[in-house]
């Protein structure tokens, strides 16, 4: 029998891996992929807690998270294409004009 704790620990680990990707990688596409990993870790938490409470609300909110993730991926990739056209690079270090 797998307990709720195992699922929560697993999704915590996945979330930390996603954060590490955002911190460590210098490629905008990989950063977006890391954000997707984080979103999926949270989805796993929602579904697991919903299952162990006996409610479908966890799956409903996962559905909405997936929709928002699709919108985020579309906008993020469009931004990446526009940025790449400007600077011919995908390194976040090249886009610091707004940094104080």
């Amino acid at each position, binding site marked *: *029998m*797998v*307990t709720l*704790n*195992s*699922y*929560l*620990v697993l*999704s*915590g*680990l*996945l*979330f*930390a*891996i996603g*954060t*590490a*990707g955002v*911190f*460590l990688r*210098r*490629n905008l*596409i*990989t950063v*977006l*992929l*890391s954000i*997707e*990993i984080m979103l*999926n870790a949270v*989805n*796993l938490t929602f*579904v*697991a807690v919903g*299952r*162990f*409470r006996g*409610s*479908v*609300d966890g*799956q*409903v909110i996962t*559905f*909405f998270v997936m*929709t*928002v*993730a*699709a919108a985020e*991926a*579309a*906008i993020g*990739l*469009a*931004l990446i*294409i*526009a940025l*790449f056209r400007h600077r011919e*690079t*995908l390194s976040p*270090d090249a886009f610091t004009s707004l940094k104080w």
Partner: protein
Amino acid sequence: MDVFAFYAFGAVAILASLLVIGQGNPMHSVMLLIVSFGALAGLYVLLDAPFTAVTQIIVYAGAIMVLFLFVVMLLNVPREEPAPPGVSALLGPTGTRLGALLSLLLGVEIVWALADMGIRRPESTASVSSVALIGSAIFLRHAFAFEATSVLILVAMIGAVVLARREHS
């Protein structure tokens, strides 16, 4: 059997995610993320959520990842360039180590905070696998959120077209 499947899917998900952030080729990263999402879909099946598992495969592994693949192939940048020396302390090896340390700390903290959360409540025996129940929850109790989602997707679609448009001037 359940326990074995949980550990197998969990190990695949963690290994694939580690490899996604661990190697330099974005194309391989996208492929490995699809593997990770497949393992998560398996976990959803174990959690009595076949609808979410199928949505995960169709929407995430099918649609979103294909979008990523298109952009990776369109831009054609196989390797990320190393940080130029002396740009900023935050980009050097010290900054990288600090980032790794921070995310490790976050992982330990999250696991520690979540580790004893589930014990207090006995497991419910109610079934959550019914698609009809999910449908009525979405279309009755969360009808407004569902309609707002359609506006969100419309805005995202127009925004993506406008942002990625080539400027003629």
